[in-house]
């Protein structure tokens, strides 16, 4: 048992519906497991709630957007007022209303880049290899089935115990996933 632990990623259970997955998530969390993750072919907010997931991506995007706004406005102001003041039709050098459009565009650009790059990076992607891809059953996670994995890295992890908890949730399949 002990010598196997390092090569084991976790125990995976397969379900036929989102409701069963949510139920199983609650039961596994109640059993005290922390390193648990669910996998589904469509976004299921209930599962995230059941597992207690939260994300700070939106605050990150806000910071990205503010950076864009300051960059856009600052760049135009610095260029038009300090670096090369140019008299255009007698307008003041600091003609801020004409800087609004580019400031807005830069805000959107920076926020969107932060949203996508942030989402990918926080999710740890790109990740060409993941132990779960060793499971043939897991191919169905992007089609029509729902999966729950108790990871071996969980401090409470015990193979027999984990299998027992997952089996009690009436899955279609329980299997060990090697590293």
């Amino acid at each position, binding site marked *: 048992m002990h010598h196997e632990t390092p090569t084991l990623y976790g125990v995976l259970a397969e379900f036929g*519906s989102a409701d069963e997955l949510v139920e199983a998530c609650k039961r596994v969390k109640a059993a005290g497991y922390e390193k648990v993750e669910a996998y589904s072919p469509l976004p*299921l907010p209930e599962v995230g709630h059941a597992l207690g997931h939260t994300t700070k991506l939106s605050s990150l995007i806000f910071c990205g957007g503010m950076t864009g706004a300051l960059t856009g406005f600052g760049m135009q102001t610095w260029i038009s007022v300090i670096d090369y003041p140019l008299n255009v039709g007698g307008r003041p050098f600091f003609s801020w209303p*004409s800087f609004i459009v580019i400031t807005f565009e830069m805000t959107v650009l920076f926020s969107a880049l932060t*949203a996508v790059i942030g989402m990918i990076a926080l999710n740890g992607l790109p990740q060409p290899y993941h132990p779960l891809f060793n499971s043939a059953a897991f*191919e169905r996670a992007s089609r029509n089935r729902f999966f729950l994995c108790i990871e071996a890295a969980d401090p409470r992890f015990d193979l027999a115990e984990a299998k027992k908890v997952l089996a009690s949730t009436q899955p279609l399949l329980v299997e060990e996933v090697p590293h």
Partner: protein
Amino acid sequence: MQAAKDPAVQEHHALAGDRQDLPVIAPGHTLSSITDKITSIVLRRDTPLAWAASLAFASTGLFFLAISIAWLLAKGTGVWGINNEVGWGFAIINFVWWIGIGHAGTLISAILLLLNQQWRTSINRAAEAMTLFAVACAGMFPLLHVGRPWLAFWLFPIPNTMGVWPQFRSPLLWDVFAVSTYATVSALFWFTGLIPDLATLRDQAKHIWAKRAFGMLALGWRGAAKHWERYEVAYLILAGLSTPLVVSVHTVVSFDFAVSIVPGWHATILPPYFVAGAIYSGFAMVLTLMIPLRSVYGLKDFITDRHLNNMAKVMLATGLIVAYGYVMEAFYAWYSGAPYELAMINNRMFGDAWKSYWALILFNVLIPQLLWFRKVRLNPVTLFMISIVVNIGMWLERYVIVVTSLERDFMPSAWADYYPTKWDVMLYVGTVGFFFFAFFLFIRFLPVIAVFEMRTLVPARDPSAKKGVGATTSSNKEGAHP
């Protein structure tokens, strides 16, 4: 979303008549049937002959594009019909036309998402692809119009050798930022939407190279709950960002005209009227693409009559806003009492280009009124023909705005006529070819409908999964299931 599946709610919708009696997805579909149906278009090994023929036909347009660009670069913009007075011509007409077409894709994917319109789900992917290719076509025109595209970096905020920067008080520079941001954000939105579907293709593909290619593009997506959580946040915020962005882009395009003092351009109605016109022409193009697509690929289960009906209604509504714009243009000219404005509208309606003006009124205002009839909206043939008519009408609108205003401005000594040359026409045909070429490639190599979003329209359950049948506890490291 859950509420719509409730039988009581469905019954209520059925009673509400026209609005809800057409389903957004044909009954009887499951998670797997949706997945298989949409991915099979990409994963089938035999390439349909009709597709190859269409691609070949569109690629003749690419040939025209290459020739006309090569000739332009060799000879300069003098090969076009533009002259000192009419400096904009086809290049700007086509730029505005293409970018307007792109706006419907963003409207469908972003604004309808925020408004929680379920019917957007089966058309957003293809509409976003349309946006991307239309913006690519649009971008070519200003780039080539500068004459020496390899110096286009002069538009970027980089000082020249004398330390002078681009002019930030000019709408033309605003346009550079607006359009490049729009292109970038549209591409990000599209790719983000594709990631889970690329993972599905990776898992469904049988061929090793298909598996590898889709695996690479999917970035290792595995549908983890934590990933979905961030994904949903990112996607929703992208939609929230794209919504004001799309409005700003065509507003800035209209500033290119409205901030000038040319009669016929210098009007406060231009921004809203341009935005409505963009959405109008864009929905026309979505219909032009979707109506053949859904019959050729048998996607009528997913792109239902409900979609055609709704898109036709959006077209009718935006068409009426555009019609209001035409009326206001004439009213402003009359009410201002300014002789140049009056001369401008008089020239548009009764001058040399009167045929274009009245043709656009016929195409954009009169014929689309047929969409008031449900029979017309639900008949794919009539709807397709109206969409073509609107595409042409919106092109004519930009022609009238750009050309007639410049041909006859303040001083008769500065009047001139504009005639496009064959190179103008060839470049335009070339971009149309490029657009369809790219779209055909997209149909073959990427899922035309967002698979994971379609899954949210059916119960999240696999009806074929039977308890106990596959329930084996296995320690087989290769996985017990075939």
